[in-house]
C-alpha cells in the first residue's frame, strides 16, 4: 500500500471512528419498547388532563415467539390512565410503572373528550405536532358526552375482525371513502386548519352505543325532525345514537365542528357527506333519497363524486357571496316503488329530485355553518385568498369573521349512469289476495 492508498484509508477510518463516537446513541431495540396505539384525553382536576393509553401487547396481537398463536389468548391490549399537568409529564409518569419505554410512533387515534374539546385543545394539538414521535397522520376523534368519555370510548373498542386494534382504527377511520359518514381528520390536517385563516378544523365524532337490547332501539336522538322529514334516513344520526345493538360497541359517525380550537357543534352523518362533497373528498357511498313519485318509498343510490366541485366566492356589499356547483353521478341500487325510473323519460324525474334533495341539504348545512356554528368548515376562504395581492391584505381581511354573513348559491349536477343489473323492475305476480 503506497501513500496514495493511505490517504483515503485514513479518511475512512476517521469517518468510521467519528460515527462510532455516537455509540449507537438513540438505538432502541424493538422489543425494548412498548407501543401505545391510541391515546385519549379527558378533563382532569383543575388544569390537568386525564390521559388514557391503549397499549398493544405484541405477543398477543401477533402470536408469541413460537409462532402460530394467532393472538387467541386473552386481551390483546391493556389500558392505563394517568392524571398529569401535560401530555409529556403524563408519559413520564407512565414510564415509571410500564416496564418498557413508551414509543408513540404507532399511535393511530387521538381521542379528546367533548368537554375538553369545547374548552379548546390548542395546547394539546401543539404538543402533539411538536413531538417527534407522534404520527402527524393519526386520526383525531372527539368522544361525545360528559365525564371521562375518551377513556370510556377507548375501553369500549373491542375489535372483532382484527386481532390488532391498530388495524381496527386504521380500517374504521378510513371507511369514510365508502361511507362518507366520517372524514380524514388527521392531526396534521386539524393543526393546519386550526391555524389557517381560510378554513376551520373538524374531528370525527365517536361514542359508544346507547342501546343494550334490540327492544330498546329508538330514533329519539335522530336529527330527522329538525330537517323536516317524516322518517329518519341513514345519515340522520350521530355517533352513539345509531339504532343498533351488537358486540361492537364503539361507533363513529359525524363530525365535531371547531371554531379555532374550540368545538362549537356537530355534524350528523348526512352533513358529513355533504361536507365531503363540498371539499371534493366524497368517494362513493350508498345514499337514500325519497321517491319523487311515491311518498312512502325510497330510492337508494350509489353516489360517486367524479369531479371536484366548482366553488366561487365574491364579495358583494362587503358580504361574501358563495357559489357552489357539485357534480354527482349515481347508479341505481333499488327502486322500492317499482316505478320505471330506468327509462329515458323517467330518469330525469329521479335526477331532478335528487338534485333538489342535495341542494336542499347543502343549503341547510351551509346556513348552519354560517349562522349557527360560525365556522367555515368547507374552506371557502381558500377561494377568497386568491383575490388578494399580498398576504397582509388577506390577513387584514379577516375572512373567518366575515364568513357568518355569507350568502350561498348551491347547484347540484346529478346524473344517473347505470341502473345496475336490472333494466326494469318487474312487479311480483300473484293473485289479488296474495298481493294484498
Amino acid at each position, binding site marked *: 500500500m503506497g501513500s496514495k492508498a493511505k490517504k*483515503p484509508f485514513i479518511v475512512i477510518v476517521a*469517518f468510521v471512528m467519528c460515527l462510532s463516537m*455516537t455509540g449507537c446513541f438513540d438505538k432502541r431495540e424493538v*422489543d425494548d419498547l412498548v407501543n401505545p396505539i391510541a391515546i385519549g384525553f379527558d378533563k382532569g382536576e383543575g388544569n390537568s388532563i386525564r390521559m388514557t393509553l391503549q397499549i398493544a401487547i405484541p405477543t398477543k396481537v*401477533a402470536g408469541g*415467539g413460537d409462532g402460530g398463536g394467532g393472538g387467541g389468548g386473552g386481551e390483546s391490549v391493556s389500558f392505563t390512565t394517568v392524571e398529569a399537568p401535560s401530555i409529556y409529564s403524563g408519559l413520564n409518569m407512565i414510564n415509571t410503572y410500564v416496564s418498557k419505554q413508551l414509543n408513540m410512533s*404507532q399511535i393511530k387515534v387521538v381521542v379528546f373528550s367533548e368537554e375538553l374539546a369545547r374548552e379548546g385543545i390548542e395546547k394539546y394539538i401543539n404538543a402533539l405536532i411538536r413531538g417527534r414521535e407522534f404520527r402527524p397522520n393519526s386520526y383525531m376523534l372527539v368522544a361525545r358526552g360528559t365525564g371521562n368519555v375518551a377513556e370510556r370510548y377507548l375501553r369500549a373498542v373491542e375489535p372483532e375482525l382484527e386481532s390488532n386494534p391498530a388495524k381496527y382504527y386504521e380500517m374504521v377511520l378510513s371507511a369514510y371513502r365508502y361511507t362518507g359518514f366520517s372524514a380524514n381528520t388527521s392531526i396534521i390536517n386539524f393543526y393546519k386548519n386550526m391555524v389557517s385563516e381560510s378554513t376551520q378544523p373538524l374531528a370525527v365524532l365517536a361514542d359508544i352505543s346507547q342501546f343494550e337490547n334490540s327492544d330498546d332501539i329508538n330514533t329519539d336522538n335522530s336529527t330527522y325532525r329538525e330537517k323536516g322529514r317524516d322518517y329518519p334516513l341513514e345519515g340522520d344520526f350521530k355517533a352513539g345514537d345509531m339504532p343498533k345493538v351488537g358486540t361492537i360497541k364503539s361507533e363513529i359517525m359525524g363530525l365535531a365542528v371547531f371554531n379555532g380550537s374550540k368545538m362549537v357543534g356537530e355534524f350528523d352523518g348526512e352533513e358529513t357527506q355533504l361536507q365531503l362533497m363540498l371539499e371534493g373528498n366524497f368517494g362513493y357511498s350508498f345514499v337514500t333519497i325519497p321517491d319523487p313519485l311515491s311518498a312512502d318509498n325510497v330510492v337508494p343510490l350509489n353516489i360517486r363524486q367524479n369531479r371536484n366541485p366548482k366553488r366561487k366566492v365574491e364579495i358583494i356589499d362587503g358580504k361574501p357571496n358563495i357559489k357552489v356547483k357539485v357534480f354527482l353521478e349515481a347508479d341505481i341500487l333499488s327502486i322500492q316503488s317499482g316505478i320505471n325510473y330506468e327509462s329515458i323519460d323517467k330518469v330525469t324525474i329521479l335526477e331532478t329530485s335528487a338534485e333538489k334533495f342535495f341542494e336542499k341539504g347543502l343549503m341547510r348545512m351551509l346556513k348552519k355553518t354560517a349562522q349557527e356554528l360560525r365556522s367555515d368548515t368547507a374552506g371557502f376562504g381558500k377561494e377568497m385568498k386568491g383575490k388578494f395581492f399580498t398576504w397582509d391584505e388577506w390577513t387584514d381581511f379577516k375572512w373567518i369573521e366575515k364568513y357568518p354573513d355569507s350568502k350561498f348559491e348551491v347547484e347540484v349536477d346529478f346524473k344517473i349512469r347505470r341502473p345496475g343489473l336490472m333494466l326494469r323492475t318487474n312487479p311480483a305476480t300473484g293473485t289479488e289476495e296474495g298481493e294484498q
Partner: protein
Amino acid sequence: MANFKKLIKDIFAFKEPKPQEEFILKEKESEKIDDVSNKNEKSPVKEKKGFIRSLFTRSSNDEKDSGSSDKKNNKLEKMVYVSKDITENIDYLKKRFSIPTNGDIVLREFDILVKDKTISACLIFYDGMVNGMLINLNILQPLMLLSNLDIKDKGTENKNISEYIHKNLVTHNQVKVSREFDEIIDEINFGGCGVFVDGIDIAYACDVKGWQHRSVDRPNNEIVIRGPQESFNEVLRVNTALIRKILKDEDLVAESVSIGERSKTPCSMLYIKDIANDSLVNEVRRRLENIKTDYIFDTGELEQYIEDNTIMPTPQIIATERPDRVASMLTEGKVAVIMSGSPFALVMPTTNNDFLQSAEDAYVRFPYANLLRVMRVIAIFMSLLLPGLYVAITNFHHEMIPTDLLFAIEASRERVPFPSVVEIIIMEFAFELIREAGLRVPSPIGPTLGIIGALILGQAAVAANIVSPILIIVVAVTGIGSFAIPNFSLGFSFRILRFVYVFLAAIAGFLGITFGLFVQSIYLCNAKSFGVPFMAPFGPKTNSGYEDQFFRAPIWKQENRPDFLNTKDTKKQPKISRQWAKSDKKRGK
C-alpha cells in the same frame, strides 16, 4: 522381586528421553550472514520505511539474492547454442534435465542412415506430455527408416543435412528450428520433442503435445438456458479456437505473451485489430509483459497482477468461462486474455454494467432481458442492503414499519436474548459458513450438510430463541439475492460490504447506510479499469452507447459500440439493420 521392583520403577519413574535424530530445515549459510550484516548496516535506512513494510521488503530481497547465487553455483557452464557434437549436447541435456534423477524425461538415442552414412541422433521429450504415436510415426519412422529412400529432388545434393532433414525427412507439421538451446528446452518443457542430430549445430523442436486434458464441457458457473453451452477448458489453443470458431474474423489477433520467469505460462491476448483502441491494446500488453514473477498458474492470479485497484472490493476485470461472452465483448472493442491452464478468460476494461449482465441477456428477447436486468438490480440491492436496513429499521426507525409488522417483529424478538445486530451477524456468519463448507465438502456428504444447515440453523435456532424467525427470512432473502448476481466476484464484494452496511446501520441507522452508499459511490466513480471510468457511461456520462447498459434496447437499435471504449469503428450496424422492414418500394427497388 527385585525385577518386579525395577519394572514398577521403570513405569513410574522419570527417564530422560532418548535423543532422537529429527529433521530440521536449517537456515542457509548466506541468510545467516546477511542477517547480521543487515542489522549492522541497513537498520537506520529501514526504520524510515516503517516496521511492517521493512519486514516484507527485506525477506524478499534476501531470497532473491541467495536464489540467484545458488543458480549460478549449480549451472557451471551454460550452453547458449547447440553444439555440432552430439555427445556434448547429450551431456548438457542430461545435466539440464537432471537425467537420470528425473523419471519422466525420455532421452532416446538412435541412428539416421543417410546415403550409407550413419549419423547418430537423439530425441528428448517428457513422457505423458506428448503424443507417442506422433513421435513414432512422424519423427522416428522417417528418420530411421525412410531416410534411405531415394528422394527425387534434384536440389538434394546442394543442400546441407540440416535443411534436408527439415525439408524432406521430418514429416511433421509444426517443427521449430533453432540454434539456441533455451528455445528448444522451453518447447520440451511445454510438451515438445527435441531432435538433436550429430554434425549440425541446430536442433529441431517438434510440437507433439498430447497430454490428457478435459474436453470442452458445459459451463459450470455461468449457466444459461438459451445460448451456446460450451465453456473454456485448460488448453490454450482449444480456448483460442473456441473464440475463433465464433468470430471467424481474420482481424481477430491472438498475440502470444508468456508470463512467469520459470513457468513461462503461455498467454494469448485477443483483440479485433480494427475495432479495439490501439492504446488500450498497448496498455494491456505493457501490463502483461511487465509482470516479474517466477510462476503463474491461473488467470485469477493474473487478474490480481494487472488490475488497477487491489483493495477495492468490486472487481475491475471480468472473468468468464464462456467463449461466446468473450467473443461478444471483443466485438465491442475490449481485450481478452486467455492463459494456458485456466478455464477462465479475462476481459478488460470492465465497467459496472458488465457485471450486471449475463450472457443470456443477448439471447433472450427484449422484454425478457429487461425483466432479468431489473430483477438483478433489485437482487443486488437486497443482498447488499437488506440486513443493514433490517438493523436500521428495528433499532432506529420504528415509525417506518407498518404496525402489524412491527408487532410481529416485536413478538418474535420477545424471547431472543441478543441485540438484533448480534443476531444478524450470527445468522449471516452461519450462512457464510454453510456456503463455504458446502463448497468444500466432499460430494457424498453434501446433502447431509444441507440438511444440517437448513434444519439446525433454520428451525432449531428459532425454536431455541437464538434468532427470530423474521430474521431468518431476511438472511434467506439476502442469500438468494446474492446468488442472483451474475458475476461471482461481484457477489463476493457484496458479501463483504453487507457486513459493513450492517455495522454502519447499527451505529447510525439510515444515516449510516446513507453514508456508506455515499462513500461507496464516490469510490466506484473514482475507480478506473484500464483507463475507463468504472461507472461509465453513467458517471461520467458519454454521448452514446446506452443501448445495452442498464436496460437493453431491442437488438436492432443497438447501433453504437460503447463510447467510453473509444473504438476505431463506432458503429455496430447501420441505423436500419432490419432492411426487410422497409418496403421494397421505399428502398427504391
